[in-house]
């Protein structure tokens, strides 16, 4: 097991280095637009996968929370011209506040009810943005939002943004891994598996769920803020049903049981969406087919396939090493 862990860590380090070195191999567009979008969506997808796998809550409100934070940035930057630090703080606070409000209500339910209620909450954000033209400028959205200069980094510059996103994605990934290994994480898993028992053991089940939802909202807000800088604008479609479904597609493609799935799913999705149209005019069909095939053949997503391949390999090696005992896992 330890050897495998070391190998996985090594693989992760190699992957990160390879991503950091991407600008040496691919065009500017692929860095500034494709890779940056993959990282941005990965962060959002990680918040979704964290909730789904660790807490067992499938939240369709993540894109809407990201949009809420994004709208704050756009409003603060392009409409009110607030200072950068204030804008970012307000956006993070607003994203988390929306998340907390949603969490307090939604965590009272579970399963399919949770999914539906978060979906409805997401659409509330969408309709609010559409109809409150004074703040959000309706369906036209807020244009001309330029990324700020933060600590010598120009977030309006595609390359700077790419490296900042890479760094943030790694931090979020490491943070969520740490949470999942912590006592808090174990408690969340236990609540997921048997909430009644945890309640009778004296745990504040509801509070833990809200806290987890808040963590996910925090991460979604980060992604939402970068999303606005990335697109230079925001409109209500960023909180629409189709965006929520896109995020679900990304997570199912990548695999709902592992954080790494977020990166795999986002990469496949963004590449398909950007380049499938070069091959066929039925590019939406292609994305749908990819989802169908993954759902059919690899219930654990693409990252699940990689894991399974490693598992089979290990089983075979164990078989060779000792033909006496049957491998357990």
């Amino acid at each position, binding site marked *: 097991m330890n050897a495998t862990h070391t190998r996985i860590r090594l693989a992760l380090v190699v992957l990160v280095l390879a991503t950091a070195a991407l600008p040496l191999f691919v*065009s*500017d*567009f*692929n860095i*500034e*637009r494709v890779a940056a979008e993959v990282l941005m969506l990965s962060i959002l997808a990680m918040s979704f996968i964290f909730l789904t*796998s*660790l807490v067992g809550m499938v939240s369709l409100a993540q894109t809407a929370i990201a949009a809420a934070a994004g709208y704050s940035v756009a409003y603060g930057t392009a409409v009110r011209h607030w200072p950068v630090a204030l804008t970012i703080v307000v956006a993070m606070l607003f994203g988390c506040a929306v998340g907390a409000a949603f969490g307090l209500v939604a965590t009272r339910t579970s399963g399919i009810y949770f999914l539906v209620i978060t979906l409805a909450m997401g659409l509330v954000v969408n309709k609010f943005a*559409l*109809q409150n*033209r004074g703040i959000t400028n*309706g*369906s*036209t*959205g807020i*244009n*001309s939002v330029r990324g700020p200069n933060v600590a010598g980094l120009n977030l309006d510059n595609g390359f700077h943004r790419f490296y900042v996103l890479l760094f943030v994605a790694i931090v979020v990934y490491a943070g969520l*891994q740490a949470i*999942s290994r912590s006592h808090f994480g174990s408690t969340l*898993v236990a609540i997921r598996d048997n909430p009644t028992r945890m309640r009778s053991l004296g745990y504040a089940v509801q509070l833990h769920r809200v806290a987890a939802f808040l963590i996910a909202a925090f991460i979604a807000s980060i992604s939402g803020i970068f999303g606005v800088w990335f*697109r*230079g*604008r925001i*409109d209500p*479609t*960023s909180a629409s049903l189709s965006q929520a479904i896109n995020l679900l597609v990304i997570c199912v493609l990548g695999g709902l*049981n*592992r*954080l790494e799935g977020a990166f795999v799913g986002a990469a496949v999705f963004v590449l398909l969406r*950007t380049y499938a*149209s*070069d*091959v*066929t*005019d*039925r*590019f*939406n*069909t292609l994305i749908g*087919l990819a989802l*169908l*095939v993954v759902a*059919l*053949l690899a*219930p*654990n997503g693409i990252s*699940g396939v990689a894991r*399974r391949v490693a*598992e*089979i390999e290990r089983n075979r090696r164990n078989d060779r090493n000792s033909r006496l005992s049957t491998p357990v896992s």
Partner: protein
Amino acid sequence: MTRTWPHRLSTKHRLPRALIIASSVVMMTALLGACSSSKPKDTVPVETPAAVAETIPAAADTTAAPAAETIAAAAAAPANGAELKVGVITILEGPFTVLGQDGVRGIEQAIAEVGGNVAGRPIKTIIESSNAAPDSAVAAARKLVEQEKVDVVIGPLSGDEGIAVKDYAKSHPEVTFVNGTSGAADTTAINPAPNFFRFSTDGAQWQAGLGDYAYATKGFKKVVTIGEDYSFPYSQVAGFAIGFCRAGGAISNRIWTPIGTPDFSSIVTQIPKDVDAIYVALGGGDAINFLNAYNAAGGTKPIIGGSITVDQSVLSAEGAIVDQIIGTVSAGPIADNNPDQRWKDFVAAYQKQFGAKGFPSPSLFAHGYYVNTKALLKGIEAVKGDLSDKEVGLQAALSKLTFDTPTGKVSLDANRNAVADIFVTEVVKNADGTLSNKVVSVTTQVDQKLGLSEADYNAIGSFGHDNPKCGN
């Protein structure tokens, strides 16, 4: 994250899984096969791919004979210039797909007229699809400019898309953008981009003359307006309101509905009893759904239509709404039955080039993309195909371009927005029972200010739910 999926790989599962894999591969191949074989049937050859680059001359076999001759001549003479890469943003997914496809036909027709070459440079079009959301249009523009490195961009199609793409254009002053059919007034009226040109007039201009005609000729004194809740209908209602209110009319209330409303029955109940007519700025499916709901509710008030309300899909509708729409007045940049010879020639060339694959008559979208492409090609001709000066020369040439289109003379104002003729039409029943739009009045050389002084127009600001006010 440590949760493992309940089932393990075992011999018991291997056989069915292999079967599943095999069957899904077969299914996928079959589906893909079906997709590719169905492709040529429902789309025009040149426009088929969403983003596949194609050199237009290849498809020009079907074009008019004179055009074919030009192509032959161009092929004989060695091309003395490098390929001109033209990026196109149009909508090829979702409910607006048929409109986007007609826009592409407009571009093809303009390019076929010059034989696929401009100033000795063969034209290569690269088409990117958007989905009516501004974000998607900007993403398409980015891919064209930053990845495909196109020389010029034509598009987009829808209102909010235009505002967003104009904003993006500012970050690439070295690339020239000409509009497709996007009709939001704000695109050029508020913070215009120096490299974004609109030769197709805006949604407010498209209503020029309609307000006066409705008030004076039709005798409507008070109306209610219904429009989809985004920038293009805002412009349409504004264009109508400016004329109608100036003539003395009143607007009781303005109802805004989301795009793609399936059921208008609750909206129909909001229509006041005391209005003389209903002004409807809805497009496509929304227009039909509204008319059906209104008719089902027993409504009989006359309809005044926006520019895309009474289009071919509504005119060819069947059932009870047919009687309802006879006599409907509307206004727009084109009129199907325009008696002008230039328009007749344009329609004939369109029909010859696209045949059954196109609409019976070019839509507003084919016309808008055609006019903008035509202007762009004339600009490039004027600078002899030389775009090496960061397109400064081309943009200067476009700014002062005046030319003749199938719908009359077009020139630009200081904000690079078109000044052109607008047609007021009325739905009439033909001898054979079909419906068509008859031209009842032409407003010549309408500018963006709609007859207001610069100060008055600017005082209105961005068109919205209650802006401009009625009666000031």
